């Protein structure tokens, strides 16, 4: 393969072109903005992608379209910004100092108090407004799941978001400059491999997926960084050396989504946001879970491939993917293999992935006629929280109303995402009724011995897991008022 090499990262920062040749593999965008460029409107609140004070927009070309997404600058590495447009809060006001409509709305509704979180809220609302100029309250709340405010109680911020919908794009800089930015970004996408630094400081942006496969085979100890919503914390919280680093978020070849008769195939680099439309179309039962993964910034950066590859026992997607019978498509060099998702997770911290091998895609088979499916995430706080228990259920009933097949998987209940084998056995062959559910609930302890930690006690986890089976059953019977719904009052 004839791959040309470039030794610099190139991107746009507001209205300026940036080219960096001497940049650390773990340089975060936030530190770059604040320390290097002295753009100090973007704040550090937590350095772990949870508070949103550092929210900026990153624009990228996606199949020729320029899309801007809110991201957490604190856990975004500069290396991943090649051929992107970074927009910070400093870029919003006009040259004469007059505020952008989003900013003016925040002032007019008294939506800032201490002001420290405010630039992040402004950027999140700006990102929302660009995609959805007249959002409903639920859209606003979803766009703000990744932004914490400790002062206002949010009411004024929601009022700001609602009032800004009345404003039109006007002379918004990103609207006015769109064509020029697309041209500039296209020019930056030169198809070369970016290769900077040496040894632990080396970081590479492969030219394409084949180049990535070659690189991984030759450098099996390299850390793969896709969305950096997990790896970012290894750096900012654990101060871990992670080099050499290979970035993949720019690889269009890993961002492919294919839907055919077999099912969905999602490239490992597909973000939650990119996957949402197709997931909610083919698996509407996953919509709620999807909307509760991280915050908007994390969904914009984080990938399904990363969520599976890192093997966390509390990852949001694996229980559902296991219950659906998904496969992990692994690749090493030119060799590919497919592993059922449940077999991929071997033990805590150990996955079925060889040195130099990487997750290339996830395949999710379609639900077949008669298959009932649901997934339930339980967390201390509804949104932007890690699940204490996450349960996914798939059953098929035969014509006699007996359970023909069952696939039930849980996260948060063991060292890995795990099937409830005994529960499944208990259900299979029995009538789908209260008595069977009671019986199945009584065998959960044979499948799981959960731990107590700060998210939940072992007792709560076990009890809730059982009760989720009951919820699944009640859902299937059509009994009303069995689920909370913030946006639809319960029927009295």
């Amino acid at each position, binding site marked *: 393969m004839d791959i040309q090499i470039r030794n610099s990262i190139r991107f746009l920062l507001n209205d300026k072109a940036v080219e960096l040749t001497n940049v650390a593999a773990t340089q975060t965008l936030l530190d770059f903005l604040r320390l290097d460029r*002295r753009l100090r*409107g*973007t*704040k550090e*609140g*937590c350095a*772990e992608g*949870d*508070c949103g*004070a550092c929210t900026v927009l990153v624009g990228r070309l996606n199949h020729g379209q320029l899309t801007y997404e809110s991201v957490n600058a604190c856990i975004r590495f500069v290396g991943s910004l090649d051929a992107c447009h970074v927009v*910070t809060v400093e870029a919003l*006001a006009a040259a004469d100092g007059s*505020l952008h409509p989003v*900013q003016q709305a*925040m*002032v*007019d509704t008294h939506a*800032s*108090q*201490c*002001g*420290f*979180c405010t*630039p992040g809220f*402004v950027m999140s609302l700006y990102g929302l407004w660009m995609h959805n100029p007249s959002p409903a309250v639920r859209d606003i*709340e979803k766009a*703000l799941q990744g932004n*914490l*405010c*400790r*002062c*206002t*109680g*949010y*009411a004024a911020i*929601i009022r700001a978001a609602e009032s800004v919908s009345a404003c039109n794009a006007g002379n918004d800089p990103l609207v006015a400059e769109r064509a020029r930015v697309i041209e500039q970004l296209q020019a930056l996408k030169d198809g070369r491999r970016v290769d900077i630094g040496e040894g632990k400081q080396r970081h590479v942006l492969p030219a394409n997926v084949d180049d990535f496969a070659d690189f991984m085979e030759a450098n099996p100890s390299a850390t793969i960084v896709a969305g950096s919503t997990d790896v970012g914390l290894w750096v900012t*919280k654990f*101060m871990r050396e992670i080099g050499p680093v290979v970035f993949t978020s720019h690889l269009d070849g890993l961002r492919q989504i294919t839907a055919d008769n077999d099912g969905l195939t999602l490239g490992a680099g597909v973000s939650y946001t990119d996957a949402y439309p197709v997931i909610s179309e083919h698996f509407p039962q996953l919509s709620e879970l999807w909307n509760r993964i991280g915050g908007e910034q994390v969904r914009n950066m984080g990938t399904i491939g990363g969520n599976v590859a890192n093997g966390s026992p509390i990852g949001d997607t694996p229980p559902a993917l296991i219950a659906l019978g998904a496969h992990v498509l692994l690749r090493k060099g030119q060799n590919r293999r497919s592993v059922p998702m449940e077999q991929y997770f071997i033990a805590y911290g150990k996955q079925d992935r060889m040195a130099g091998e990487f997750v290339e895609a996830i395949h999710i088979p379609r639900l077949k006629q008669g298959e009932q499916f649901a997934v339930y995430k*339980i967390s201390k*706080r*509804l*949104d932007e929280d*890690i699940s*204490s228990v996450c349960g996914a259920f798939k059953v098929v009933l035969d014509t006699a109303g007996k359970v023909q097949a069952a696939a039930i998987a849980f996260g948060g209940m063991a060292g890995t995402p795990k099937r409830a084998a005994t529960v499944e056995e208990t259900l299979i062959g029995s009538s789908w009724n209260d008595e069977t559910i009671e019986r199945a609930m009584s065998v959960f302890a044979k499948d799981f011995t959960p731990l107590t*930690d*700060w998210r*939940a006690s072992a007792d*709560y986890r076990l*009890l*809730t897991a059982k009760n989720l089976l*009951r919820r699944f059953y009640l859902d299937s019977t059509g*009994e009303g*008022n069995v*689920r*909370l719904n*913030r*946006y639809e*009052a*319960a029927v*009295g």
Partner: protein
Amino acid sequence: MNSIQPIARIRGGVHEQQPHESGHKHVSGSAEYIDDMPEPADTLHAYLGLSQRAHAEIVSIDFEGVRACAGVIGILTVDDIPGHNDVSPAGKHDDPVFAVGKVEFHGQPMFAVVAETRQIARQAASKVKVEYRDLDHAIDVLEAEKAGYPLVIDPLKLERGDIAGGLANAANRLSGEMRIGGQDHFYLEGHIAFAMPGEDDEVTVYSSTQHPSETQHMVGHVLGVPSNAVTVNVRRMGGGFGGKETQANLFAAVAAVAAKKYKRAVKIRPDRDDDMVATGKRHDFHVAYELGFDNAGRIEAVDATFSARCGFSADLSGPVTDRALFHADNCYFYPNVRLRSRPLKTNTVSNTAFRGFGGPQGMVGGERMIEDIAYALGKDPLDIRKANFYGDTDRNVTPYHQTVEDNIIPQIVAELEASSDYAARREAILAFNRENRILKRGIALTPVKFGISFTKTEYNQAGALVHVYTDGSIHLNHGGTEMGQGLYTKVAQVVADEFQVDLDRIKVTATTTAKVPNTSATAASSGSDLNGMAAANAAQQIKARLADFAAEHYAVPKSEVFFEPNTVRIGNRLVPFAEFIRTAYGARVQLSAAGFYKTPKIHWNRAEGRGRPFYYFAYGASVSEVSIDTLTGEYQVDRTDILHDVGKSLNPALDLGQVEGAFVQGMGWLTTEELWWDAKGRLRTHAPSTYKIPLASDRPRQFNVKLASWSVNREETIRRSKAVGEPPFMLAISVLEAISMAVASVAEYRIAPRLDAPATPERVLMAVERLRAARNGK
């Protein structure tokens, strides 16, 4: 009187909605916080090294790995402290800057690394090797009590009437206990200090502190220099909530010691996790009580003990636990009462001020007693509340012997009960609960009465400095700090109103110990009460001089000089304000004044538990409706209605924001915010990934918040307004009580649900299980 009418109203006077003075800077990212200030060349960065044990002797510390890091300039230990190794705000010398000999909580600062960059300092600090000899530790209040841990400060007892007789003669008696969790402040801007060395013994410190004067004193104390050598500045904080009342001192002191040692500017800013493990929080409480009451639910006697997890040192635990007792009555008359505090030492970070300052915990305890009575008698808790409200002319003496003179809670509650349609909604909820087996709903209306004034009487004073320049622009400085509450805006409105000039003529400058000395913490909701009055006083002094001058210069009686919108009316003459000031300057009138204020009427004798600690009370009430899922314990707040009393509001827009924000912060405290320590005494919920404050999607789905516009402070406060910072925090108790009702529904409302706080989904589900088991056991 003169017949000329005022030409217009000024822009931005008192009682008007005005945007926050920094609003436009917040949204554009140009509001400068300490970490945003341009650093002088050669600025160094300090980072704290923290204890990895909850309780241990320090056998040895090996800094070799720290020193080996390129870019490390030096290490600060106790040997580098020229003055005292102590930042105890209580004057008890129990709060070392750096632990010596032993550590008393996991996360206690032991040393600091100073390096070329923050990154290097932080990384280097983790390379230390410490040998510990572990000692037994006690994390929890009851554990500490059992282990015989001491109290960190003398406890308080409030007593009135015949407790034993009251209990013995009551028709009904019950006893109970409750746990109330603590809370991390989670200000979005963490702690930070930036110190610049000066000549001789001087140092200037920029600190994110609510109490610049105390920070000044502590820096002087640690450096061993007098207060006049230390200047502390703070333009704004990115949130405080009490977390920066005393906790900023250590960071300021470390930065100052390093700045003097290395003769370079030094900045210190912990990572969020270190901020959360190394600085104090709201106190957790255990409350045990015994109650006597009649068949109508009227309380005869209360005997309650409030034990608090204070942490390893006193800090503010004395006044915090005192205030818990001051609010254990909330709005209710206790004919015979004994309330005791137990401020216990524990091997945890020293707990500190947090919005409400112990009051919320006391009030939750009081409301739990009401709830217990209601479930014991099978009544609506609101009826029990009303039956026990303080009276106007009798039944109006608090457990601390202060007479409640300004009680408006019956009006507040009556208005809210009607406007929220409480009765009909409660009926609908009871019906819903009868018909549905998985989802259950609850509703609760809870009142708030909160005492305003520092209970430490000497803190109830304030100063301000006002200059009028010859162009008619006005410079305002006062001792209060801006942490988002809008204090600068409100005080500027007061000064604008005094001079009758537009608000944009006034500039409020950064709070600094060099302009206004010996200030009190911006705390206890007192900011605008104290500083507004002091600023008004300064303006009035200048106005008096100006009036004297005008009368003489224009030869009119002083009674014919009026400050009118942007003009001064002197007899029949109208002079534009700026022109008038220029003329006065020409006549050598002093155009600057230092204002002062001290709160009247208050006094407090702690030893006797008697006095008038509070100048007045602020009131409010809220009604919340929730739904819970009895399979998982998940819940949501469907609706909250609030009616809150801020007297005659100085700025209704900012006050509304305080009420909304305080409610949601209080809701977080009582629901999802959980401090969780492991067996080794390590706090494991120490970042937003594990510690869950409310999000936009947690606020009540319907959120109707109103100020009681008819309320006027009966005392002569600044423009008859009332303090607003803390009181609305406790409106969130309605959420806890509404969840309790939903839980109680599974046992037909006849068993007190006794839901501990925070009511996480786990606690809710476990309470549901407990009540179901109790019901089925009958």
